[in-house]
């Protein structure tokens, strides 16, 4: 007899047990394989059919789709079944003697059983994925429409591959957790019950703990913190997290060529998810080793699992009392009943029931104490925690710049205050910036803890953030000091030197927000703004959905509303140069200049200020540049002038800002003529802030501030203008309509939603849409009937009969002479040309018309 080294004997037993285990699982393997074949491969086939039929699939194919999804889900759930089958000796008393007496080390027995079960479970899935990918690849070659989804244009193949790998990891964790539960339980009933409970209660438990101890903490985005935790720790949580990631733009890459989850986010998830899987595996192996043969047929071999589960369930029920203390007594009763039910089932009767009551008492008392402590300490200090400068390596802030703050004020954009500052996250590493951010964070927390604005606290529920209400409907008197009132929502992400990241979201007052203006002088923000500018001037042309040409056009306008603009075509090198000019100008602009330098042009959403020397020089010296003039914008916008006492920013007397909280007194406002508006536009600027009282002009849906040094000019015009509370009269409307070359705009907007008139309006558009010189209106139109009909429209619009028109003439100018027959003839022609419009009456001017000027 030859002597065999012990180690190789162990390897042989390991291998033999592995093979035996696979052989014993033959039937399960076949079953799972069939399910997997009916899963992804069938799904791939359905995609092919759909692509071949250009998206149309019949009822029968839809049925197959359901089958495919069902089979895939069943195949995934088979992981539980495989674990239960492979480790049956952990709950079947009859097999204990046979298995435990075998001459094989426990460790090897466990590993060979574990790996054989995992192989049976995931190998069919891997094969299914390969077949699916081959089907898609073949489809791409054979079916052109497949390219739309899986080909070169906007392919979701990267996302599918990410999903397939994620599915593999999720299945591995599901299987591992199932084996872990089997090691803790001694009967089939407890094993199955706890496998499902554990899969639900890992994510549930995290959510419950978060809600119990960390909900409604100011600044702590509990949802964004909890969801990744769910994603890392459990299969169900991973699915929830993947959907969350797909919904959140910052976690996605949506390029013109492909769509997938951002690599850093996905990679981080894979790494941590694997780590937790390994931890579960290590725990399983440890418990398996510690487990005794005589534990079979006991409900629990390790009762810790049971106590954890029952505690989480009790805590979940207690959440009601956490958020509504009046429910404490019913919660105690209900949780006691549930607790006792579990105890009776686990103890198989009422044995030592008094101990169950004691356990419940201890559990509930512990939960209450922890809950009270958490509430009293603001989540065990989590809310008030700030990091020292030495611990932070960098900070990301979703601050988009001073321009961003000023931008969202107008009703042009609408939105709530909490959208005012948001931009993409930009990472800053300078110590000065980090220090400032930490300081602002401390101020925000201090404001909250001072409880000054407690009556405005609003929270959405268990897992949402707490924030100050930003409801527009509050009257001026409710917000005593809007300057100090926190309305600007900002998020900080602190990247710690230990590798962790802490996210906090606060509502800042304007005073606090101003301290972040130093970010505008950083390289990072300037680069970000310059990149966005570059995107703004880049044009991509597509032919047949394929990228055809990239060009650069510097499209600029005098007005933010971009009613009329002009273009400077640029080469790529010129575009880069422009970007650099803008970036340098941005970097060198001081805070004072951002707040007061006049905006001279708009390039997209980006204001170009007087102090942007390089940018303006670039524009002026390039071919195609044209100096625009406000003269062109006659009729585009009516303006209103407010005196200093008629316009208040932030409820403060000594501040004038074109953004933020404003209140106006319309009784003090003055309507300006176009000429008056032009005069003030020489000095006024949107995107302005000054700590003085100034005149303010509302023009082009924005507030234009006339700097205090020009107040005398504004005052003069104010005194000359008419005090007219009725901002826009019928007569003014009719006069403007007849004078404007865009009469059909007035017509269209007045008749908005009147579908019967659309035909007439279309006709009016066609009549107007001719290239006309900048001369007399009467020469604008082509010769012939079309011209005459359009003139009749402008003359008779708003009236429903010739008599009505003649009455109007009489009322407005009793001395005017007109030919009655001529009017009646013209009316006949007008009503034949525009039958619907001529039927509609104008009885008053809609105030909304004002904004369409």
């Amino acid at each position: 007899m030859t002597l065999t080294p012990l180690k190789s004997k162990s390897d042989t037993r390991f291998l033999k047990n592995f093979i035996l285990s696979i052989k014993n699982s033959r039937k399960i393997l076949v079953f799972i394989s069939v399910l997997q074949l009916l899963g992804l491969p069938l799904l791939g086939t359905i995609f092919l059919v759909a692509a071949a039929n250009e998206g149309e699939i019949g009822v029968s194919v839809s049925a197959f789709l359901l089958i495919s999804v069902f089979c895939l889900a069943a195949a995934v759930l088979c992981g539980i079944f495989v674990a239960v089958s492979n480790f049956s000796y952990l709950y079947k008393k009859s097999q204990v003697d046979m298995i435990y007496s075998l001459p094989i080390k426990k460790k090897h027995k466990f590993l060979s059983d574990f790996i054989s079960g995992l192989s049976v479970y995931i190998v069919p899935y891997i094969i299914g994925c390969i077949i699916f990918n081959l089907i898609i690849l073949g489809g791409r070659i054979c079916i052109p429409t497949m390219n739309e989804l899986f080909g070169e244009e906007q392919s979701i193949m990267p996302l599918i591959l990410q999903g397939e790998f994620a599915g593999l990891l999720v299945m591995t964790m599901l299987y591992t957790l199932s084996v872990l539960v089997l090691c803790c339980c001694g009967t089939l009933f407890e094993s199955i019950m706890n496998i499902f409970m554990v899969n639900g209660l890992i994510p549930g438990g995290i959510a419950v703990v978060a809600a119990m101890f960390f909900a409604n903490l100011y600044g702590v985005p509990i949802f964004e913190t909890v969801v990744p935790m769910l994603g890392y720790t459990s299969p169900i949580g991973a699915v929830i997290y993947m959907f969350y990631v797909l919904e959140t733009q910052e976690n996605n890459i949506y390029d013109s060529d492909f769509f997938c989850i951002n690599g850093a986010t996905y990679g981080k998830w894979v790494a941590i998810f694997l780590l937790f899987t390994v931890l579960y595996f290590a725990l399983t192996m440890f418990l398996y080793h510690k487990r005794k043969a005589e534990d079979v047929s006991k409900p629990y071999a390790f009762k810790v699992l049971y106590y954890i589960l029952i505690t989480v369930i009790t805590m979940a029920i207690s959440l009601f009392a956490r958020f509504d203390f009046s429910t404490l007594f019913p919660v105690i009763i209900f949780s006691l009943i549930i607790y006792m039910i579990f105890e009776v089932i686990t103890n198989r009767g009422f044995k030592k029931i008094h101990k169950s009551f004691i356990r419940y008492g201890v559990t509930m008392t512990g939960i209450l104490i922890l809950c009270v402590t958490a509430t009293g300490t603001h989540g065990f200090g989590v809310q008030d925690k700030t990091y020292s400068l030495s611990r932070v390596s960098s900070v990301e802030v979703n601050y988009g710049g001073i321009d961003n703050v000023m931008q969202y004020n107008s009703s042009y954009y609408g939105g709530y205050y909490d959208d005012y500052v948001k931009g993409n996250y930009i990472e800053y590493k300078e110590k000065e910036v980090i220090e400032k951010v930490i300081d602002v964070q401390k101020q925000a927390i201090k404001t909250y803890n001072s409880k000054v604005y407690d009556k405005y606290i609003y929270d959405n529920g268990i897992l949402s953030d707490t924030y100050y209400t930003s409801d527009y409907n509050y009257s001026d008197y409710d917000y005593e000091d809007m300057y100090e009132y926190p309305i600007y929502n900002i998020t900080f992400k602190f990247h710690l030197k230990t590798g962790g990241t802490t996210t906090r979201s606060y509502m800042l007052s304007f005073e606090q927000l101003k301290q972040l203006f130093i970010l505008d002088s950083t390289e990072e923000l300037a680069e970000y703004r310059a990149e966005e500018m570059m995107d703004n001037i880049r044009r991509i042309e597509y032919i047949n959905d394929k990228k055809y040409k990239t060009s650069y056009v510097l499209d600029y306008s005098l007005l933010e509303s971009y009613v009329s603009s002009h273009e400077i075509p640029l080469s790529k090198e010129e575009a880069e140069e422009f970007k650099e000019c803008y970036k340098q100008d941005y970097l060198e602009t001081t805070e004072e200049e951002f707040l007061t330098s006049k905006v001279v042009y708009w390039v997209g959403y980006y204001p170009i200020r007087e102090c942007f020397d390089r940018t303006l020089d670039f524009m002026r010296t390039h071919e195609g540049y044209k100096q625009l003039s406000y003269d062109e914008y006659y009729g585009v916008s009516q303006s209103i002038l407010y005196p200093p006492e008629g316009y208040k920013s932030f409820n403060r007397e000594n501040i004038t800002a074109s953004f933020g909280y404003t209140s106006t007194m319309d009784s003090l406002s003055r309507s300006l003529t176009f000429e008056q508006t032009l005069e003030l536009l020489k000095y006024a600027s949107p995107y302005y802030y000054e700590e003085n009282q100034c005149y303010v002009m509302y023009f082009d849906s924005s507030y234009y501030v006339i700097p205090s040094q020009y107040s005398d000019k504004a005052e003069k015009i104010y005194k000359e203008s008419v005090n007219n509370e009725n901002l826009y009269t019928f007569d003014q409307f009719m006069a403007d309509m007849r004078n404007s070359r865009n009469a059909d705009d007035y017509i269209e907007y007045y008749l908005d939603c009147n579908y019967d008139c659309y035909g007439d309006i279309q006709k009016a558009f066609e009549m107007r849409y001719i290239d006309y010189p900048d001369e007399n209106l009467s020469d604008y139109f082509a010769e012939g009937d079309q011209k005459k009909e359009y003139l009749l429209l402008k003359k008779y619009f708003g009236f429903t009969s010739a008599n009505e028109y003649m009455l109007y003439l009489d009322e407005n100018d009793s001395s005017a002479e007109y030919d009655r027959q001529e009017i009646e003839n013209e009316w006949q022609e007008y009503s034949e040309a525009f039958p619907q419009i001529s039927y509609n009456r104008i009885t008053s001017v809609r105030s909304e018309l004002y904004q369409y000027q």
Partner: protein
Amino acid sequence: MIELKGVTKQFDDYKVLDKIDLTIPKGTAFGLLGSNGAGKSTILRLISGIYSPEEGEVCTDGEKVYDNPAIKEKIFFINDETIQFTTFTLEELKNYYKCFYPKFSEELFEKLRSTINLPLKKKMSTFSKGMKRQAIVITALACQTDYLLLDEAFDGLDPTMRIIVKRMLVDAMIDRQLTTVISSHNLKEINEVCDRVALLHQGNIVFSRELDSVKGNIHKIQAVFRAADASMPQSYSKEELSGTGIELLHFEKNQSVYHLIAKGDVEDIRKKLEPKNPIVLDILPLSLEEIFIYEMEALGYDFNAIEIEK
């Protein structure tokens, strides 16, 4: 050799074995006797490495058994159940154990199988209880282990099959010095097969020695005493007879005839009873079953103590 040194085994709060010491020499046929719940099966499971003791050591050939494949491949344990084999065919069962026991002999297996004519490819769920028992016994013997532990292994076998199986065991014991440890309530079989026995009661070893020594140590005595003179008592109580120095396990008097069960040397007992002037003194050997009953009775495990309701 199998050694249990100071072994304690507990299941939750219940102590099954309490610091027991037991030695099973190599090559012996060792019988484990005891009342129900005495700990016999527990001892077998400790020896086969299924259980680990809370205290003490369980060693085979000088090495601990628990989680030690090198030692466990020398031991085969047959328990009193057969349900775990129902999903196998005999061939699958053979192949299963063959993977783990390197000394498995196909020839021996085939020889034993053909002797008792068990089908190879039929599912064992179709076998009778006895056939299942036979199947595992021949598999165990074919593994050619050094130690074979049997827990109620003959249960379910017909008388002829019992003889055949016993013969197989004896052959193996002779051929390769197989050490057999048998736990059974069938004391007749223990008597036939074993050369050493141990008696357990409530987790303790009452005795452990050679069977002949056990039998030679307990005797049934039938005696009639007659007073030699008026000074001598007409009859004796149990205490009076125990006072002679005899260890009495059982005392019964039927008119003038005394039925005693006593422990000790025969000649010694005779000498101690002589002064009582016995006119009849028959010392008879006991069967193992009788020894078991009377030993248990002395320990309080007495069938007379259990009243059956009529």
